[in-house]
């Protein structure tokens, strides 16, 4: 596949061309922070961002979506989002999260709503130019990414190295003015990768992430869960900003004719009171500490079982910044367990 070196001025024209041809969502400033939003002009694109407020997850699994419309006692109609779009500026850790969701949503009953949006997306990933305050992707092995995207961009100073990874990416990249990346440009890209593998590490995990399932196997009754949960609001902020949290709730709502209606899926979160409430009112994970523990077990033990051992925390650090009482940091919890329980 093609690897191009694109001068920054030419890159701007390339992005403007993308915006003209297809709905393009890119990273932009939001106050003094950053977030993904529909892009109207290349000049709003900020590939020098540290981390976005929300992960790009919402473009595949929206906070609220209509799954189907129905008529009581009659037929139903699945609602699929058919709009094609380009997602521009996905950091490697977020790309890893999307790769994991791709696996999860295609397992068992394939989720046609997720998969349709995913198929309609062209992802242009980009290597991290500036580490955020809480990133620990280096610890999680997600500081660089090798699959999932259609194009990968790396800022090497005066230009970008852009590598196409799929026919879709190849086709798009053909529109960009640039030259074949020379050895010097590729060397600079290697340097960025080498740097990020070390520097995206504001919180350092004291073990290989692959060890986490074994660590958690002996930590179920550890006091840390009660200790941390004492000051947990159960506000689910950690869930809401997480690129790998995908739990949802489904509710039916009827229209005023009381005959037709829609089935709506909304994000849910395992920290929330009521998350485990089942009909009629039984709640099987009632205690705050049990819910607090569950999130760390999902990331470090349960989900990995479903996706070949990959750890479902990608080290974006968003939960660390979003948690008001500062108890959400997975690294500080896992490290505490390592200190107390040892490795091996």
């Amino acid at each position: 596949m093609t690897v191009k070196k694109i001068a920054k001025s030419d890159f701007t024209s390339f992005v403007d061309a993308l915006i003209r041809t297809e709905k393009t969502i890119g990273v932009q400033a939001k106050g003094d922070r950053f977030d993904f939003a529909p892009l109207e002009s290349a000049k709003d694109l900020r590939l020098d961002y540290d981390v976005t407020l929300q992960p790009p997850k919402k473009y595949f699994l929206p906070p609220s979506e209509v799954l189907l419309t129905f008529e009581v006692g009659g037929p139903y109609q699945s609602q699929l989002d058919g709009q094609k779009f380009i997602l521009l500026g996905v950091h490697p850790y977020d790309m890893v999260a999307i790769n994991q969701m791709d696996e999860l949503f295609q397992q068992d009953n394939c989720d046609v709503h997720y998969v349709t949006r995913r198929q309609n997306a062209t992802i242009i990933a980009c290597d991290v130019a500036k580490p955020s305050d809480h990133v620990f992707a280096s610890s999680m092995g997600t500081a660089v990414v090798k699959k999932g995207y259609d194009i990968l961009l790396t800022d090497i100073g005066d230009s970008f190295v852009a590598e196409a990874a799929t026919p879709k990416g190849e086709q798009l990249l053909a529109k960009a003015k640039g030259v074949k990346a020379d050895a010097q440009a590729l060397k600079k890209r290697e340097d960025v990768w080498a740097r990020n593998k070390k520097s995206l590490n504001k919180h350092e995990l004291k073990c290989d992430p692959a060890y986490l399932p074994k660590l958690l196997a002996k930590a179920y009754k550890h006091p840390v869960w009660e200790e941390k949960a004492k000051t947990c609001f159960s506000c689910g902020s950690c869930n809401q900003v997480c690129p790998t949290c995908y739990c949802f709730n489904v509710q039916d709502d009827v229209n005023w004719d009381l005959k037709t209606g829609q089935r709506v899926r909304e994000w849910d979160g395992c920290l929330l009171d009521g998350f485990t409430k089942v009909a009629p009112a039984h709640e099987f994970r009632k205690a705050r500490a049990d819910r607090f523990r569950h999130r760390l077990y999902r990331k470090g033990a349960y989900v990995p079982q479903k996706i070949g051992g990959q750890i479902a925390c990608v080290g974006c650090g968003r939960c660390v910044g979003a948690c008001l009482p500062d108890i959400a940091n997975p690294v500080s919890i896992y490290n505490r367990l390592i200190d107390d329980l040892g490795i091996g």
Partner: protein
Amino acid sequence: MAKPKIAIFDFACCEGCQLQIVNLEEEILSLLGGADVVEWREAMSEKSDEYDIAIIEGSITRMEDEERLKVIRGKAKVLIALGACAVIGGINKLKNNFDDLEEVKKCVYGKAAGKPHLHTGPTKAVGEVVQVDFSVPGCPIDGKEFTYIVRSLLMGKTPEIPEYPVCVECKANGNPCLWQYDQVCLGPIIRAGCGARCPSNGFRCFGCRGYVDKPNVDAAKDVINRFGLNIDDLKTKMVLFGSRQEPTIYE
């Protein structure tokens, strides 16, 4: 099957929640298609003593209002508390923070304080006087949530309103946390369902929807300390909608 009869009654309030229903405009016609509205002072002149669903707006501050409310409860199969004043007592409960209510009355009404219709006691939420079947929180209510609740009831379904706090909707909207911008936001302890309207527009959560079922007081104290504030900084923010949310007893 006959359409269910709905009656809307107001007590101590600004009637802004009823206004939210009036503001539904086209949807009101749909509401009227599914139900017969038989009494609604703000929008029609007819009155009726027969209704299935009573919607109560406002809080209860006078003995005669308690009696009136009990009569309504006796007639209604389902009773809905509408808006912060009805659900939690709302802003009206501010006065319950004072020991001398006569003093409060003079301060508010001046020379008119002695008039008989102003003879009021401590504020009560509707649920402190009669049994409430469903609540529509908020100041004012969210029109969409109100119509969802009414439609659910017309279908014979139990409406689900969020148990979780405002942070959930605020984060889903992609907002940065206002605490990081020096605002003492009540989002972590207040019931969601408003779509985090205030924080999404740059204002802290004022708490109009009332506390979640299990607010974590220890967490609030911890956060206050972490941000170098003292507990009064939080309490002064909670007083507007959070005053005396426990049941109020007349002396």
